[in-house]
Structures are given as C-alpha cells and as structure tokens.
C-alpha cells in the first residue's frame, strides 16, 4: 500500500505541471494561435518565482511564500506571452518563428541574468523547499483517499485541479469561452457577429502564458532543490499532452495522468518490487513514457479535432 501511495504521489508531481501547461495550450490553440513557446514561458515563470523564493527564503517560508511565488510566476508568464501575442496577432507573423525565438530567449536570459546578479556567479538558483505538506489536517487521516491525495502533497496539486475545473467552466459554460472557441474555429464568422478576434486571441495567448509560467514553478518545486534554467522540455511535452488530449480539458487530464504515471514508472522502477528485480538498464525505462505515448497516439489520432483556424493569422481582408 505504501508503494502505491508513493507511486501516486510521484505521478502527481509529474502530471500536475503537464496538466496546467497543457490547459494553457488549450486556451491559446482554441483561440487560434499556436504557442510552441510554452517551454520558454515555463522557464521564465520558474526563473522569476524561484529567484524570489531564493531571495525571500530567509524572511518567509511555507505556504504564504509559495502563494506569492505563484503570483509572480503567473505575472511573468503573462507579460512574456505578450511578445508572442503581439507578433502573432498584431503583426500577423509566423507563429512558429515567434515561438522559437521566445523558446531560445528564455533559457539564455535565465542563465545570463542568474550569472550576472547572483554574487557567486553561478547559473543555478538554489532554494529551500519548505512547501511540502506532510498531511492535510483531518483529510489526511481518511483511509486510502487520505494517503492518495492528502499526504506528502503540495498546494500546487490542488491548484492544478482547480484550474482544470475552471477551464472546463470557462471554455464551455461562459460567453467568453464560446467566443474564444469561435475565434479558433472560424474567426471571420466570429468577427461578423461583432466579436473582437484580436482581443480574444490576446486573451488566449495571455492565459496560456499565465498557466505556463505557473506550470514552470509547479514543475521545479517538488522535483528539485535548484533551478538550472531548464524545465527538461516539459513545455514540449505539454504540447504533446494537449494534442493527445484532443484540445479538450478533461481528456487533457487523462493524457497528463497517463504520461505522469509512465514517467513515474520510468524514474521509480527501483522501488516497485516487480520491476526492481529485472535487469533492464535505466535508459530503457526512461524511454517508456515516450514510446507508450506514441503507441497510444497511433491508435487514437485518426480523427483529430484540432481547432480549424489554429496557426493562421487573422486577416480581416482575406476571404
């Protein structure tokens, strides 16, 4: 039972950042803008918020520090995403080019700034992890469920689920969501009924930036004690999870959980009794999540439901 809890908790550490960032991807693509810069936005969000934790670690700790860091990550991601929005919406630029530029900029900027402003001149930013909740009061004592959800948890896990629920409501139950989706499917039709396509696309990109920035922080906190200007390509994986989840929030959740579970098996195989005794080298285990995803995709991609107008700049004059 203890192993099951461990695997489940570990899966959450991998899945939640993927879920948050992939949901960001859903918003931007549903509005009609491809955002391959999710990785860069994660790095920027993680960079500023971890740096904040590094600086404030002496005076603050625990959940209040984490919550402020979350706000900083969200703000950073949003601001950084404006560059993409401006290029993609106002200037009708190629969205792949702009995204590639931001992806390249973010790690370079993080390393450059870290080495310039830290006194020891290193690129790693260390931080004290004071955020783990050993057991949530009352809820943590519930048998089984307590062990699965409310022990060794981070507040970010719950935030991830809240974001999921909010995403479903916003996308499918509000006027804003309907308009956003219309802009991704048929912007001219949306425009003809008075929806401001540019504003909707800005909103989509900025939401994705906010969530990606948050995802960067959420990824770094449980898995490391320093930030080294990388999120291990999680932004790209989130893109994959988003496609895997067919641009639908609930399916994205299952895609993220599936990938997180595979990743956990790959990294924690030595504590799983059945797998520990086999003599398979670790490199082979590390390949499992990616191979498994490819196989699942091969069987599930026949009817792709990508937004129709994604990646196409909106031009009022075109037909």
């Amino acid at each position: 039972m203890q192993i099951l809890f461990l695997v489940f908790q570990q899966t959450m550490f991998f899945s939640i950042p993927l879920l948050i960032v992939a949901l960001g991807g859903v918003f931007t693509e549903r509005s009609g803008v491809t955002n391959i810069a999710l990785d860069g936005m994660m790095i920027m969000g993680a960079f500023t918020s971890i740096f904040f934790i590094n600086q404030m670690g002496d005076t603050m700790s625990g959940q209040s520090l984490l919550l402020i860091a979350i706000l900083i990550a969200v703000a950073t991601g949003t601001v950084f995403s404006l560059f993409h929005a401006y290029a993609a919406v106002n200037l009708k630029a190629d969205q792949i080019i702009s995204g590639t530029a931001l992806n390249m900029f973010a790690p370079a900027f993080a390393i450059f700034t870290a080495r310039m402003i830290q006194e020891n001149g290193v690129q790693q930013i260390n931080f004290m992890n004071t955020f783990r909740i050993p057991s949530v009061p009352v809820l943590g004592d519930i048998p089984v469920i307590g062990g699965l959800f409310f022990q060794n948890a981070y507040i970010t896990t719950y935030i991830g689920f809240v974001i999921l629920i909010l995403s479903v409501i916003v996308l499918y139950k509000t006027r804003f969501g309907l308009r956003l989706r219309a802009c991704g499917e048929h912007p001219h039709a949306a425009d003809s009924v008075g929806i401001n396509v540019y504003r909707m696309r800005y909103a989509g990109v900025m939401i994705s930036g906010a969530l990606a920035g948050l995802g960067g922080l959420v990824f770094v906190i449980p898995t490391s004690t320093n930030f080294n200007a990388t999120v291990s390509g999680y932004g790209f994986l989130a893109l994959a999870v988003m496609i895997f989840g067919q641009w639908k929030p609930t399916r994205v959740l299952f895609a993220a959980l599936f990938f997180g579970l595979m990743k956990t098996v790959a990294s924690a195989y030595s504590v799983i009794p059945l797998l520990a005794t086999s003599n398979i080298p670790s490199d082979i285990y590390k390949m499992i999540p990616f191979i498994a995803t490819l196989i699942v995709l091969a069987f599930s991609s026949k009817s792709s439901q990508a937004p129709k107008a994604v990646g196409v700049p909106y031009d009022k004059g075109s037909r």
Partner: protein
Amino acid sequence: MIQVKELLTSDSFNKAYSSIFSILIGLLFGLIILAVSNPAQAGEGFIIILKGGFSTGAKGMGQVLYFATPLILTGLSVGFAFKTGLFNIGAPGQFIMGAFAAVYIGVKWTFLPAPWHWIVALIGAALIGGLWALIPGLLKAYLNVHEVIATIMMNYIGMYFANYLIKLTVYDSKKGLSMNTAETAVLPKGGLDYIFYNPLGSTKDMSTVNCGIWIAIAIAIIIYIILNRTTFGYELKACGFNPHASRYAGINDKRNVVLSMVIAGMLAGLGGGLLYLSGANGRHIKVVDVLAMEGFNGIPVALLGLSNPIGIIFAAIFVSYITQGGNYLQTLNFVPEIIDIIIACIIYFSAFSLIFRKLLPNLIKFIKKRKSGKTENAAEIKEADTVQAGKDGGEQ
C-alpha cells in the same frame, strides 16, 4: 536607374534585406544588454562578438566552419520539412542517432579501407537518421499523428536509446564520452589544413575543420536543385502549399509526407556523422540526458535562412560565427549566453519580415512622390500611370 530600382524592389532582395535588418536589430539589442549589465566593458565585449571567429585568427575561422557544418545539415533538415509543409522539430533525435551510427561504424568496422570507411560511416549516419524520421512520417501519413508531437517523442526516445547503445558498444567509461574512431574513419581535411591553422613555433596549431563543410555545402546545393529544378521537389512543395489541391492533381500526398520526413531525417543524421567523425581532437558524444543542441539550433538556422538551402549555408555560418565570438566573451566578465539572446532577438524580428519587406518599396515610392510632387501635380499622375503601365506590359 530602373534596374537599380527593380533590384531594390525585387522579392529576393527584399527577403535578404529584411534578414539583414533583423540581424542589425538583434545586434543592437545585444549591445544594449551588454551596456546594461556591464557598462565599462560593453564596447570591448561588443567588438569581440563582431570579430567572432577572427578573434583567434585562422584557426578560429576554421572552428567557425567546423561548428557550422552540423548546423547547415540540421538547418537543411528543418528547412526542407518546412518547404513541404511539415515542422520537423525532431532533428535532435535524428542527429544523435546518426551520430551514434557514424561513431559505431567508425570504431567497429575497421575492416574497411581508408576512403570507404568514413564514406560508409556517413551513409550509415544518414540512413539511421532517416529511419528515425520514417516512424513519425508513417504515423503522420497513415495514422494522422501530428508530426510535432511524434518527432518530440522520437527526440527523447533517440536520446535515451543512443545513450544506451553507446554505453553498450563504444563507451570510453574513463572520460564518459564515446571512443575515438579509427584513423580510417576520420574525415580527410580536404585542403582546409593549409588555410585554417595558427603557426605555433615550428608546428601548426590545427583547427578541427575538415572536408565535412564541403560535403555540407554540396548537400545544400543538391537540396536546392531537388526543390527547385525537379518534378519531385515541385510535388513536395505543392503538398506543402495545399495538400488537398495536390491530391486532386494526382500527387500521392501520403507518400510525399513520408519521403519528405525521411529526407529531413537523413540530413539531420548526416549532420551528426559529420560533426563526430573529426578525429581525436574533435567532438565526442557525451552520454548525458540532454537533447542535442545542434538539432534544436537547426530551427533558428532554417528560419534565418528563410528555408532556402543557400540561405541556410550563410545562416549557419553566421550563427556559428557569433557563437564563437560569444565563447571569447568569457575573457571579459560576460556570459556567453548573450549570443543566444541575440539570436533569439534576430529570429523574433525576422518574424516581422512582412513589415520590413513593405518598408523599402514604400520608401522608394514615397521619395518618388516627393520628387514628382515638387515639379507638378500632373506629373505625379503621369508617373503613377507609367508605373501602372510598366506593371501591366512593361513599355518603360
């Protein structure tokens, strides 16, 4: 005068000019960052960036070409796929698998005589790279799997698989690197050893550049010919522009998607072979869980070269040139990542190329208007008429 005007407003000139404009803005941005972070040494640092590979003389320029070689190939890989409407983000995986194949053949197949050994190793690299792209190609064509996600997955699979295979076969566990290849598998210098060295007493301090750069340039020209002068290339481009129309015109679009991915993968794999078959003082494969940067850097190179094979050659040499400059920046109190920031800015501004492209023709028009406006109002109308006539039939 008319010819000059035509040149200034021609499409290809406009494209090159917008790239150059982006480069200037990127460099300016770099200068600003240098000035903000360390005002005292900013000017000196900027000069080092501009001097690039020249900072260490002929050997430095040789190194520029050596590191440009894989960039040309991965740039071609991404650019070729772009031309055919695919986004090959999988160059890192194809690159590292190709590199492993080349090193494996270079170390193990010592029964091959001298010229054949490295040729076979390069062919092996290209084939394995192509195989690594065949899988996403097939998935895209027949199972509708998005090529971006499939190639991303293949990147990670390739990285771990190459690490596994290297540890299994050609691992130098003392250094944590792949082994030296046999002498017969090292690429010959191709005459470049007479140019790119620094005299060091009676001996020569050699650059690691070799005939790989010639091969890379030759491949770029071949790709240019395939894309622009053959039916096959035309079909590939047609599929990129409009797959539905091409299918209607009788082009087998599924086959073309697969072929295009395979060719892109072969290019990236060959790039891996060319980088790592450079002898004992050249590069060795590091066994680390990091995706090959040469692969990702193919994306900016392809974008900067506007996916044109010839443009990609220059873009790769440019990127390699200022990256070398960035390495010398460490002699001052600067971080070499400034170069990545500059390249990122250049690419970001190249995304605005549409605006730049309109800028110069509009400027010319504006000047002409001013000129004719001074003389007479009627002249302006006449001018406009002749321009129109020139566009219609060309009687000017």
